[in-house]
């Protein structure tokens, strides 16, 4: 059967998506750790240093971002063992 226009030919699309979602889940804490360590590169001290107010906003913004991402991912995640079923349904 020819794929719908605009979509590449790929079988078991749902299972593939689930596996990539799990990859993303694994990467999320790494991503978060890097973002939260970034402020260490900022200039310090009272003269030309960054203010704690800005740092506070930055850190909480990262927090909200990570929580949002985790929320979306956990919604889309299916229980283990469901990948095979998803693939069956996809066929």
């Amino acid at each position, binding site marked *: 059967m020819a794929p719908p226009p605009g979509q590449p030919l790929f079988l078991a699309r749902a299972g593939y998506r689930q596996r990539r979602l*799990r990859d993303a*889940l*694994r990467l*999320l*804490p*790494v991503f*978060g*750790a890097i973002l*939260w*360590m970034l*402020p*260490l590169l*900022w*200039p*310090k*001290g*009272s003269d030309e*240093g*960054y*203010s*704690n*107010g*800005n*740092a*506070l906003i930055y*850190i*909480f913004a990262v*927090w*909200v971002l*990570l*929580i*949002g991402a*985790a*929320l979306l991912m*956990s919604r889309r*995640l299916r*229980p*283990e063992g469901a990948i095979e079923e998803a693939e069956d349904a996809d066929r």
Partner: protein
Amino acid sequence: MLTFNLLVAVALSYVAFLFIVAFVAERRAAQGDDAWLSAPVIYTLSLSIYCTAWTFYGAVGYAARSGLEYLTIYLGPSLVMLGWWWVLRKLVRIGRTHRITSIADLISSRFGKSTALGVIVTLLCIVGVAPYIALQLQSITLSFAVFAGEGGAVWEASDLNSVALWSAAGLALFTVLFGTRNLDANERHHGVVMAIAVEAVVKLAALLAVGIFVVWGIGGGVASTLERIETSDIAHWEQSGGRWMGLTFLSAAAFLCLPRMFHVLVVENANERHLATASWAFPTYVMLMSLFVVPIAVVGLDILPAGSNPDLFVLSVPLSQGREGLATLSFLGGFSSATSMVIVATIALATMVSNHIVVPIWLRSRSQGAMMSGDVRAIVLMARRVSIGAVLALGYVYYRVSGGGGALAAIGLISFAGVAQILPVMLGAIFWRGATRIGAAAGLLTGFAIWGWSLFLPSFGEDAVIPMSVMAQGPWGIDWLRPQALFGIDGIDPLLHATFWSILLNAAMFVLCSLISFPNPLERLQGAQFVNVFEHSQGARAWAPNAAQAEDLLIMVQRIIGPGQAQSIFQKAAAAQGKEGYLPDVTPEFVQSIERLLSGSVGAATAHAMVSQVTEGASVSVEDLIAVADEAAQILEYSSKLEAKSAEQERTARALRDANAKLTALSIQKDAFLSQISHELRTPMTSIRAFSEILQDGGLAAEAQRKYAGIIQEEATRLTRLLDDLLDLTVLENGQVVLHPQEGMLHDLLDRAVSAAGLLDGGIRIVRRKADEGVSLLTDLDRLGQVFINLISNAQKYCDAKTPELRIVVHRVAGGTVVDFVDNGTGIPPAQQQVIFEKFSRLGDHARAGGAGLGLAICREIMERLGGRVSYLPGQGGAAFRVTLPKPEALAAE
């Protein structure tokens, strides 16, 4: 003005409220209504015991002293939860598959169910956590003191001590009441979890309320609060990179390794899917907890007089503004943080102490081991209660000894660094099959020693434990052993220094010793089980189905989890094998499931020791070792598929075999029945004929005539009785019997049966508990009475004890109400247990029995017609019969 007494009343009524919450939750769970108790939101809220009083009060003080560094304490756990797919998912799966009861149990179980490792981890946790409990007691007393000071009173040390003592006693009571109600095979405590979930809401609400008041009530909105931050003492980003990363790592490690966190994360987890929800909900919770910390700190620094304790800003800022209601709410928040932490930490520690220290010592001190008489449950529960008391007492003593001063404030992070020593071994345990017991012990002891030397002992203050000279020059003048400058590297922050060296050397020793040592078979087996938990959650097979006797196992399991539950588990296992009764075949799977069941109550190492006493020898078979070996992975996969197929076939085959055996037995029985019946009829007939012939011949004395006629009559009566019985049985078997349902009480029926059984004086003694017998019945009471009479007179006939005794026990089990008739004789040998309900089966001496052996067969038919059952109950000491009473609806349906 809020009086101190009023505050005490508020605290007490809050505590009473928590008792009620816990009690109601326990009740609902006991009624099987635990769906809402195990909702993901409850799970997430229970994780909030991470936020103790140290974070509730201390975070603001921390922020006032060192800016944004306090955030690291929350960033680490957030990262761990966001990365649940890596570690937590695996931990939870392992915890559920292997019924892990604590972090010590995890380590012990993974490394060949080693008792020594369990002890090491337990001791480490006690040393690390007891000061932390002391810190919570201190925070409770300090918060009371703030209110007392506001009221004009200045507290003496003795006042503070008594508050701490009463708090510790109250917490011990709560923990004993709700933490040790039962020995659940899953080690879950619905009451406690519900109470800490409520406390989680209270502390979040309290901190948010104070924060909102500070930002919009005092600060004048978000923009002006930010401005206030810009002009405060902590306006500038001056964070040290080492501490920022080090503390984030440390809090992440502690989040996984703290006994209380492990308890709520893994042990109390009801469903793996809850982790997915908690992965975003818990970071949200801690984000909200830390949201207003900086504003409160800045405003506190601004408006309170210099020198005020910033650790108590959460209380003193609202108080200084005359907001007593808000201050009380905030007090309750801090109180909640402290109490929930202490309760869960104490349960977790007490479980570890009782499972890994007390019970093993107690078992070893008895030569006959797990087969002793008496109820082990009571002892395990008592050990746990005593441990709870001991842990809290230790916390209180630590509080007193340390003087409750500033030395305690630093203990939070020191405690984190202590329990973080478990992290390398824990990660190795679940990700690396090559990790061995010796490596784990070496790593743990190294880390523990370095932490103690470089961080814990110096924390008692200068010259308190380690003399100044040692701090400055090293022990015996060895320069590179100086506690805060190991290997001569000077000038690092002491906390970072200790964490860095202890974790590094801990991990190095762990890996090195694992590489050069060799694991024993059980270790390798458990290692494969843990590391590949997702591939085969089925569990290891460590048992050869040799000498283990189902009845011995039943006796042991009854003593640990109680007779009712044990019997129903054995019955289910037997039914799954297609067998009737209470004794399944002792297959490796069955032994293993029993071992897991017990490990839920007493820990893996102890359960393993107990089961191997019964099964005689902890043998690991060749197949198990093949299963462990990497090279055999493909064979394993293939064979597991085969196994799944063959399990099904085995069940069918077993059912067929049983059916075949029954058919064969039936055909033999039919022949035997005919010959039996002719024999039974013939004997009285012969004597009747002989004596009537003698009478017919005449010429006898009147005395002799009477005697012979009497014999004829007696034999005729026996014949009639036999024919009655046979008729009765035939009618019952053909289902032609008409039942006459009546209402009545069980105790009346038993009274009647006991008197109708015609007990002789000096014969069997009947022991009953009338209190349990108040069960109303709707069934054919005459027929049921017939069954009771039969069982009682059987006991009278066959019980061979010196002082025969029959216990009649009425109790409720899952399937309904049962009446057990247990005598104290030698019981019925297993081979006979199968056939006693068959027709004409009599045991031993025929003459003594005086019946035709139809009694039990009739009983069984009657009970089947009534919709109940009668069965032999093994493992009770003597002969025991269980009558399962018909359910009222069973009869109504007929």
